């Protein structure tokens, strides 16, 4: 059982709080992604779990043991670094074998594992080469193979794909997910790329300013963002937000039309809808003036102004729309979300 329990972990650097009391449980064999922009604390959290940083307060448990006072080598983890950290003075074979040699495994066992993992990562022809002779993508595979060879219970990955080009990244995403699922490891994966997060995670923990804003399955995060931040971070393009003024207890006026909404004491809240959950409808309640049309191939992205607020609509690629047009739009009512204008939390 390799469940990871992070209890009230906080980290302070000098006068700055990098992490504010984080609580997170990663189930055995679960693939959890820590997602957020630079500086949100995701890498710091990962490094604390790894033992490369010490938390200012809180506890970390791996597989039922409390590990926060243990060095990385005693935590039963393996890690893949952003810049791969492939040892330049060793061959690919020796790199992959490194952890196994440290564990003093038998030579035959080491050879078996190295060859097996190299085969898994499709780098068997490269075993005799040095990292200087490898491409970025190949080095990345060596880094992953090196971690997998130790057959860890927990794998930690710090933005392993961010230095690869877009096409390679897409291929590696699928490959990694498959390999990790097969190896039955518990994984914590850090990234700032929401597409990676959405495609690979069992659960995503979205972080901002040292806090976990929401930890949920990708679909839940997408459909039911717990905060304004989540809605605006996830999805490309992100959610649209419009101010909503109170008419009655649960009636809100948005851009001239009244919608049924949640009950709130506040006089103003936020109305949110995703660009793809809107369609052109001559009877639609929202009036939008198109300012920019971007034909993206799979769909047409129209940037409009609704009530002088930026509002994006994803339309069919054949839609006949150009800048300057006025559209009437109908949002899918089930997909409308509401947020408190001050706390930014979902209502």
């Amino acid at each position: 059982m390799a469940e990871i329990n992070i209890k009230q972990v906080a980290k302070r650097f000098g006068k700055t709080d990098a992490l504010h009391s984080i609580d997170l449980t990663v189930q055995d064999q679960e693939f959890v992604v820590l997602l957020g922009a630079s500086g949100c604390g995701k890498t710091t959290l990962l490094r604390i779990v790894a033992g490369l940083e010490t938390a200012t307060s809180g506890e970390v448990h791996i597989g039922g043991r409390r590990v926060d006072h243990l060095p990385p080598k005693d935590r039963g983890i393996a890690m893949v670094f952003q810049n791969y950290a492939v040892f330049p003075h060793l061959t690919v074979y020796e790199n992959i074998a490194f952890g196994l040699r440290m564990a003093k495994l038998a030579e035959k066992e080491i050879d078996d594992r190295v060859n097996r993992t190299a085969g898994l990562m499709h780098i068997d022809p490269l075993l005799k080469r040095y990292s200087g002779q490898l491409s970025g993508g190949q080095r990345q595979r060596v880094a992953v193979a090196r971690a997998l060879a130790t057959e860890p219970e927990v794998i930690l990955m710090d933005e392993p794909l961010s230095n690869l080009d877009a096409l390679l990244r897409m291929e590696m995403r699928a490959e990694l997910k498959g390999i990790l699922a097969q190896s039955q490891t518990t994984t914590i994966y850090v990234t700032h790329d929401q597409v990676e997060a959405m495609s690979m995670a069992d659960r995503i923990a979205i972080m901002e300013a040292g806090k976990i804003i929401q930890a949920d399955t990708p679909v839940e995060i997408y459909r039911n963002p717990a905060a304004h931040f989540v809605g605006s971070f996830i999805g490309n393009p992100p959610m649209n937000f419009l101010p909503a003024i109170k008419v009655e207890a649960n009636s809100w006026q948005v851009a001239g039309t009244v919608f049924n909404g949640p009950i709130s004491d506040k006089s103003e809240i936020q109305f949110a809808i995703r660009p793809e959950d809107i369609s052109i409808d001559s009877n639609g309640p929202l009036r939008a003036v198109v300012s920019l049309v971007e034909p993206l191939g799979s769909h047409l992205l129209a940037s409009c102004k609704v009530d002088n607020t930026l509002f994006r609509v994803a339309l069919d690629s054949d839609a006949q729309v150009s800048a300057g047009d006025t559209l009437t739009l109908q949002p899918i009512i089930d997909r409308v979300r509401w947020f408190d204008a001050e706390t930014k939390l979902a209502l």
Partner: protein
Amino acid sequence: MSTAPNMVVGQSRAARWSFNIAVVMLCLWVLIPLYLLISNAFSAPADVNAFPKKILPNVDTESVKFFIGFYGVTKALWSSVQVAFLTMIMAVAIGAPAGYALSRFDFRGKNLFRIMILMTRAFPLPLLALPMAIMFIKVGLDDTVFGLAIVHTTLALPFSVLITFSLFSGIPLELEEAAWTLGCNRLQAFIKVIFPLVLPGITASAIFAFVTSWNEVFAAAVLTIENRTLPAFLLQSLDDAPLHLKFAGGAVLVLPALLFLFFVRKYLFSMWGIANR
């Protein structure tokens, strides 16, 4: 930089010619005096003292033989080797850990230490020989190989610290961290990952410390009498030694240093921060 930037030289033939001529002339400027020393050293004493001198001498090792056989020379050579060797060991053994600490850790007093190191470069270090002479007499270290090596180490230490600092800084912390996650403690990670990568650079800086000590004159002259190093010996015999002796001595002083530095030049260049293309 992957290609040479065009800073001053244009592409015209005239510009390229003057460029090449300048380079050749500067090389000759450096090499000719050196050649003259070596040719003098490998000439017969009669030729050395003759006038006018020939540019291409008859190669004769008599001067060198005479020099080696001259009283006190082999002893001085041996002293030089011992002092330089000790300096090399001490400068690296003391300087490398400091360089590592400076590159890897952030701690209180870091800036103070760096300032102290820089200050030692601003101070005319050979002058330390004066009070050291007194200190050593009290402790019984005067006129010893070890005593002089201590002064030379003080001379070499700032460079040793700064060079190892830049060496270690050039190795990403990620490599050590990866080793930590693969079952190494701090020391094991250092031995298995860092050490092989810095070894060439540390060897080069050790040789640089060796050469610094080998060449040092003032402190050696002040601190040693019986156990004089070669430069001290030569200095003190400048007034009465015959010319061919001085030249042979000069050559013996110069040649080993040249050889050493040739072999480690690649590492020296990167140590001094000169990027290798």
